[in-house]
């Protein structure tokens, strides 16, 4: 079964990035290789970049399952944008063993 709206079918191979919690999205990011992150970023970024209108037409109240999955996947893209666009490594430079954990977050 398709996870995303039909015009986002190209993202189906990356459906495992549609994770509802920031903790899981960040966890997947830091356990991925830069190659994996780059591949995901390259596939998802152009679709986000061209989808502003679509996303603005997707109300949060009563959001469909496919749109919710898309929202989670793009949320993952946001966390992955940091390794790709700034750090050139999966973790934050100079962050060492520090951790900051989410305890309350919206669903969706």
């Amino acid at each position, binding site marked *: 079964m398709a996870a995303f709206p039909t015009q986002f079918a190209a993202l189906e191979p990356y459906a495992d990035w549609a994770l509802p919690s*920031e903790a899981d999205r*960040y966890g997947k990011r830091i356990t991925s290789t830069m190659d994996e992150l780059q591949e995901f970023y390259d596939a998802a*970024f152009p679709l*986000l*970049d061209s989808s*502003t209108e679509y*996303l*603005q*037409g*997707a*109300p*949060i109240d009563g*959001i469909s399952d496919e*749109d919710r999955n*898309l*929202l989670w996947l*793009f*949320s993952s*893209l*946001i*966390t992955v*944008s*940091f390794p790709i*666009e*700034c*750090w050139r490594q999966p973790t*934050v*430079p*100079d*962050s*060492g*063993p*520090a*951790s*900051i*954990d*989410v*305890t*309350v*977050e*919206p669903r*969706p």
Partner: protein
Amino acid sequence: MAHFSKPAEGSWTEHFGLSTEPANYADSISPEFYALEQEAIFKKTWLNVGRVEQLPKAGSFFTKELDAAKTSVLIVKNRDGELRAFHNMCRHRGNKLVWNDFPKAEVDGTCRQFTCKYHGWRYDLDGKLTFVQQEGEFFDLDKEQFGLAPISIDVWEGFIFVTFNPDPQPLREYMGRMGAGVEGYPFELMTQKHTYRAEIGSNWKLFIDAFMEFYHAPVLHNRQSVSEESRKLAKYGYEALSYDIDGPHAMVSSWGGMSPPADLNMVKPIERTLHSGLFGPWEGPDIGELPPGVNPAKSPAWGIDSFLFFPNFMLLLWKPNWYLTYHYWPTSYHTHIFETTLYFAPPKNAFERLQQELAVVTFKEYGLQDANTLEATQTMLESGAVTEFPLCDQEVMLRHLHTVCRDYVEKHLSNAGAVAAKGV
């Protein structure tokens, strides 16, 4: 070269009558000083423990662990819609009253009454003892006399405060001029909430220090900007628009050239796509005119105000109309729990949700860098290898915080001395 004007005295530090001598951090590496802070500060001042939105209806409650005041508190909304706070402790044998699986973990929920897990004593939402297991086995027990121990509680702009001071200053008065200046800000509209928590290996004041100065930002966080912009920022360094001090409270007002950026090439691709970044969505919701205490310099370049309401509650108001809070809860002289909550107006659609997500994630990227340096700072300060440290004018609020803490402790000691002397 200065980009923003300074007070007539030539520096903010001298303007506020603070010393320009090197500072020392003896107050941040001493178990003895921390013990005094617990008594003089955390048991005397108003402490922000949450927001009214956490207690939506009668019977809503949450608990808050306050190691710094050596207790756990229980906050509840009673049947009349009033807020009550109690020591989270059963009146019978001192057991912790409300907890789930782990006694040290904070909990929240809704209930009609509180029942102690240990011997089943029950209390109503006003803390009154309503049931004693095998009451007949006790001796002259008057249930009226054995309610939960109450704590003073009050609300300012929807922020719930408690104090252990038996004779507290009214909360609104305690919040002072700066508190008054932000009254009327529509906090109640911003109910979309993200909360983060971290255990930090440093004295609580050292992390406040990191967030009350932005002198470090162009250096430590240099890779957050695209490289050309980053070089420019590092060259300019950092200057605040203005600083203010009112009693123990302090604020710094900063420029915010990133929301939206003058030139789209200054920011990263994801920011260009989502029209969002560290400062939040570039186009925030319309909330009308801001209260007079916000952006006190009335600068068109304004981006963010950071208020520190003593001792440990920071409130940051951002130009695109959202806010966040920082809390620093000491657990020992060299450890504390750091909490951040980011509050937005609820997003109407998926795009707005993603714009907010980017602001939240960006906060975490920065915060991880800040948090990581702290444990090492703590150990090196404890080495005592260097005891005097120069502070620049952009670090004026650090000076103020450490001075206020020492003043509170000294006042506490002299009061205690006076009481002891009277006792003789």
